């Protein structure tokens, strides 16, 4: 659909002429400079990747190998023992399942809630939309500690303490705060002719939302869903406070909290870090295009 693409992309008119500005120099000097810049960037990128590489190498190294040859040598005798023993000690499969359930639920629920809010603010243009929007953004701005203790206190009598539902509810609200702002600002560019045509046809508001707005907004909703999923996956403070038994841990909690709890050797810590990194690497490869464009309401307007 062209309208939705226009809202998503807005490709700027770009004219690129190869020999222009600073590149217009003697070709030898230009080439030296260009490759200098390129190698500089490669060196920087190597620094960015180095921590991951070091962790990956040591996760498959035996503890004796690590003790004898240090953290920089390649593994003499690669093993999956560290990974397996950490996996079993914390039931990492369960943590993966918990994280998928929590992040997946929040992605769907927060996007739905954002859509409903934004429909009223962005399409309905109810009065007081701006103050309401600022009000919603508060949920995104407030530090966790401003709400954590009363929530913790309320969760116990409600039977929500140590349940995934508690975390799902909290993050649905927190992620929908930004989501409302994001979706509402995209909706502001919604083609009026389509809305008017729908009204002339006697289209009800629910029908308007489901049959007209949602199909056109689908790309932006998908972007929000991806970000809400990743953001929720990466959260630490609230999941750590609310999910206290091993069987409820999310991936970051399992990796970070169990450092102190279990008697883990250095190799197992490296393995735990690698296991924490790998799912995100998968998401990154899957959603790279969406993620690396960043998300601010302005950049999609």
């Amino acid at each position, binding site marked *: 659909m062209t309208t939705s693409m226009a809202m998503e992309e807005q490709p700027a008119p770009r004219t690129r002429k190869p020999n222009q500005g600073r590149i217009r120099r003697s070709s030898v000097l230009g080439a030296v400079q260009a490759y200098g810049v390129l190698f500089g960037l490669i060196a920087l990128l190597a620094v960015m990747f180095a921590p991951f590489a070091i962790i990956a190498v040591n996760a498959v190294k035996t503890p004796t190998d690590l003790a004898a040859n240090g953290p920089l040598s390649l593994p003499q005798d690669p093993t999956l023992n560290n990974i397996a023993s950490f996996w079993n000690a914390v039931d990492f499969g369960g943590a993966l399942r918990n994280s998928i359930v929590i992040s997946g639920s929040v992605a769907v629920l927060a996007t739905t809630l954002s859509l409903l809010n934004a429909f009223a603010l962005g399409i*309905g243009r109810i009065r007081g939309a701006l103050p309401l929007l600022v009000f919603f953004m508060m949920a995104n701005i407030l530090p966790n500690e401003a709400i954590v203790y009363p929530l913790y206190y309320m969760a116990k009598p409600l039977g929500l303490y140590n349940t995934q539902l508690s975390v799902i509810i909290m993050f649905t609200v927190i992620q929908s705060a930004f989501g409302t702002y994001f979706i509402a600002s995209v909706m502001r560019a919604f083609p009026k002719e389509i809305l008017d045509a729908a009204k002339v046809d006697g289209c009800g*508001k629910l029908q308007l939302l489901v049959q007209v707005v949602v199909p056109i907004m689908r790309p932006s909703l998908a972007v929000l869903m991806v970000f809400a999923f990743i953001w929720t996956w990466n959260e630490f403070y609230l999941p750590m406070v609310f999910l206290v038994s091993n069987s409820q841990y999310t991936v970051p909690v399992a990796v970070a909290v169990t450092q102190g709890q279990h008697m883990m050797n250095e190799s197992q810590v490296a393995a735990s870090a690698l296991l924490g990194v790998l799912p995100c690497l998968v998401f990154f490869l899957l959603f790279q295009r969406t993620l690396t464009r960043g998300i601010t309401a302005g950049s999609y307007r």
Partner: protein
Amino acid sequence: MISGRAAKSKKSSLDSGYWVFLLPGLVMFLLVIIVPFAATIAVSFTTWNGVQLPKWIGIDNYVNLLSDPYFVASFQNTLILLLAMVVIPTILGLLLAGVLYSYVSRRFGEKTASFFRAGFYLPQVMPVAVAGVVWGWILTPDGALNSILQGVGLGVLAQNWLGNPDIALFSVMGMMVWFQVGFPLVIFFTALQRMDQSIIEAAALDGASGWQTFIHVTIHQIRPEIFVVVLMTTIATFKVFAQVFVLTRGGPGTATYVPSYYTYLNFFQKSQVGLGSAVATIVTVVVLAVAVVFINLQARRDLAEDF
């Protein structure tokens, strides 16, 4: 809000129907954000161990905090962390975005620029807590960083990176820069792609060097994005928790204390819920004040155009 329906007939009649869609969001927002936040403020005026009834003590918690070394340290550290969370990543992100967009993508193609952009962004998709475990592993006394330093003959620089109170905060900051830099980079890169290229070309025709164009034209053009990035990362600085929790637990001493970690300790380990609530309230007020100042400076104009 629905009143005045008769007066401004068309818009108001629409209004009434749309309010229904806002109800679920408002109710959940009330229960999860507003009520707990109000409770935190109320509790901040009490002394409470979380079990017995809270006892009203007025502003005593706030008065005590002024001379509380942990609290003072946590705020001082936060101000220093602004360097690693806001200043350095924003400047690095600007430079990298500029080089990648206006140089690398022209000399080596857009694919190459995208590859670098994705590479620098990678830490951003990781949980901070997991990134903390990764760095904690590297920064131990017999860890990878010291091994590298010894390997290249700089063994004298080897440190107990997280155990030395003079160094620990800077070690945490190193990890933060590594983690943060991808965020401004992708926001600025996307902004540059949307920028009106004719202005850049006009500057080049006028004889401006690449660097002059970047400083005087490009930065000016993407100013809204710079504001957004600085606002969001400043707020994030006051929320720093997992990095400190995983790497240092605030130590050694108070060297890496931050407000979030101090409230966490008060809430869940020291049973000083009133004091913790006072810290949380102060942090929240500071964060909201930062947001209001920024919005007044810049974003209000953007918002007002739209809403």
